[in-house]
C-alpha cells in the first residue's frame, strides 16, 4: 500500500460494490461510537431511574427523546448501555485477536524454524484445537478458571491462534525457500531478526486478512458466552450480557434484546461482506482452511 491514503480511498470506492462501501461505513460508525461512548450519550450506563422504567424506543407510543432506544427494567438508558457494551465487546475481541495472532505467529515461526519434533507438536496442537467445537472447550475453560475478564480474553486468544499458526508456518516455510531469506542467513542475521524484520512484513497482508475474517467469530464467541451467563459478568456489560438480560423481558420489553442483537448482526454482516470482497480480490492467495462457527 504505497499509495497516499486519499488515492487509496478513491481507488477503493471505485472498485468496491455499494454493499462493501456500506459495510465499511457501518463499521466505522460503530467503532467511533464505541470509542466515544461517554461523549455521545448524556446518561451514565448505570444510572437507575425507577420512574422511567421500560420506556419503549422512539417511534413507539410512550417513548421520550431523551431515551432514543428506550429504557430497561431499572430505567437505565438502553442507548448508553449499548454503547458501553459495544466498547467492552470490541475491546475483548480486539485484545483476544491480537493475543491469538501473537501466540499463533510465535508458534508458527517456531514450527517453521525448528521443523522436526517442534513442527509435529505444533501441528498436533493445531489439529487438537480444530477437532472439538470451540464453544465446548471455552465452556470447559470457564468452568475451570472462572469468568474473570482476562480469562475471557485468553479464551478469545486460544480460539484464533491455530489459524495464525498454520498460516505463519506455511507462509514462512515458503518464504524460507526464497532467495532473500537465504541471503540474510549468509549475511549472518539472527533467526529472530529474519522472522520479525523480514518474513513478518512479507506475510503481514495475509495475516491481516485473517484477522478481519476471524473478528466476527471472536465477537460471536464472546457474545454467546456472555449470553449464556458465563462470560462477561455484571457490573461490566457487553453486547451478549445485554442480549441475555433482554431475553428475560421478551414478553414485556422486546427492545432490550433487539437493540444489542441488531448491533451484533450489523457487525458480523458487515465484516463478512467485507471479508468476502477482500478474498475475492486477493483471488487465490487466501482460502478458508477452517470455517467453524458458533
Amino acid at each position, binding site marked *: 500500500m504505497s499509495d497516499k491514503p486519499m488515492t487509496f480511498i478513491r481507488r477503493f470506492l471505485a472498485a468496491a460494490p455499494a454493499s462493501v462501501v456500506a459495510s465499511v461505513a457501518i463499521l466505522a460508525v460503530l467503532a467511533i461510537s464505541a470509542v466515544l461512548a461517554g461523549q455521545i450519550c448524556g446518561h451514565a450506563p448505570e444510572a437507575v431511574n425507577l420512574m422511567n422504567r421500560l420506556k419503549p424506543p422512539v417511534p413507539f407510543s410512550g417513548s421520550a427523546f431523551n431515551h432514543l432506544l428506550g429504557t430497561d427494567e431499572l430505567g437505565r438508558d438502553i442507548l448508553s448501555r449499548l454503547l458501553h457494551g459495544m466498547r467492552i465487546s470490541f475491546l475483548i475481541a480486539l485484545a483476544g485477536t491480537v493475543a491469538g495472532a501473537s501466540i499463533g505467529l510465535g508458534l508458527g515461526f517456531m514450527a517453521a524454524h525448528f521443523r522436526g519434533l517442534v513442527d509435529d507438536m505444533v501441528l498436533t496442537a493445531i489439529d487438537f484445537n480444530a*477437532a*472439538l*467445537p*470451540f*464453544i*465446548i*472447550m471455552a*465452556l*470447559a*475453560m*470457564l*468452568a*475451570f*478458571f*472462572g469468568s474473570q475478564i482476562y480469562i475471557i480474553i485468553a479464551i478469545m486468544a486460544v480460539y484464533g491462534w491455530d489459524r495464525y499458526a498454520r498460516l505463519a508456518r506455511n507462509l514462512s516455510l515458503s518464504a524460507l525457500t526464497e532467495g532473500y531469506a537465504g541471503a540474510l542467513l549468509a549475511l549472518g542475521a539472527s533467526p529472530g531478526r529474519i522472522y520479525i524484520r523480514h518474513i513478518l512484513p512479507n506475510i503481514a497482508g495475509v495475516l491481516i486478512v485473517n484477522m478481519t475474517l476471524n473478528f*466476527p467469530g471472536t465477537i*460471536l464467541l464472546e*457474545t*454467546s458466552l456472555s*449470553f*449464556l*451467563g*458465563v462470560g462477561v459478568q455484571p457490573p461490566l456489560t457487553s453486547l451478549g450480557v445485554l*442480549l441475555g438480560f*433482554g*431475553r428475560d423481558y*421478551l*414478553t414485556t420489553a*422486546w427492545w432490550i*434484546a*433487539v437493540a444489542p*442483537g441488531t448491533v*451484533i*448482526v450489523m457487525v*458480523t*454482516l458487515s465484516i*463478512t*461482506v467485507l471479508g*468476502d470482497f477482500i478474498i475475492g480480490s486477493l483471488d487465490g492467495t487466501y482460502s478458508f482452511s477452517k*470455517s*467453524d*462457527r*458458533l
Partner: protein
Amino acid sequence: MLTGCVFIALRLTGDPAALILGPEADAEALAGFRVSRGLDKPLYQQYFRYIKDLAVLDFGVSYVTGIPAREAFVEALGKTMKLMLPTAMVTLLLGIPLGVWAALKRGRAMDRGLMFFSVLGFAVPNFFFGLLLILFFTVFLGWLPSYGDADGWHYIMPVLTIATSEAAIFSRMARGAMLDSLNMPCVKAARTRGLPNWRIIWLHALPNALISLLTMAGFFLGALTAGAVITENIFSWPGTGRLLVISVANRDIPTVQMVVLGIGASLITANLAMDLLSLLANPRLRDAAR
C-alpha cells in the same frame, strides 16, 4: 494426555470444596466435603484414582445434584439426539437443493438472492435468531411454546434456529461443489453426447457434488453440536448443551468433565464413521487410501 491436562486444570483452579459450599461454610464442613470426595489424599493418589475411575467409565457424582455424572449425560445425550436428527434433516433438505439451484442459475438474480440470504443466515447468530423466533411466534402470535421438549410443537423453533444457520453455510458449500462438478470432464462429455439436461444434472453432476459434500460432514457434526449448546439454552431443551452450561455456571466439575469428554468421544466416533462412509461412497478415495 487429555486426561492429564483435564486433571491438572481441575486441581489448579482452587479448592472445589470452598467453591461448592460457598463462603459461609465452616472449616469442619469443608474438611468433611474433602474427605467425602477424596480431595484430602496426596495429588498422585487422586490422579491414580481418577484414571482408575475413568477406565471403568465412572466420571464421579455431580457436586450439585448428587446424580452420577454419567447418568445425567446419557439422559441429556438422548434428548440432544432427538433434537439433532430432525435438525440435520431440515438442514440437508434446505441447504443442498438451494445450493444446487443457485449453482444452476449461476450469476442470475436467483443465485445472488439466495447467496444474500446465505450471508444473512451466516451473520445472524443463533442466539439472536432464536430470540426473534420466540418474540414473533410466542409473544406476538402465541402459536408456539418457547421452552421444554414435551411434544412436536416444541421442536419447531429450536430446529429452525439451528437449521437455518447451518443450511446457510451448507448451501454455499453445495453451490461450490455443484459448480465444480458442472465443470468436470464427465459432465462435458455428457453434454457433447447430447444427453437431456435433467440426466446430466441428476445422474452426472449431482452425485459428484454430493460426494464432495460428504467430506464436509465431520465439520457439519461439529457445527450441529456447537449450535445445540446455544439453542438448547435459549429454548430450555434438557440436552447436553444445557447440561454443560448449567454445570459450568455451578462449577460442577465432574459433570463438565463428563460432558466435554463425552461430546469429544461422540464426535470422534461420528467423524470416523463419516470417513468410512465416504470411502464406501467414493471409489476414487479408496484407491487413494491404499
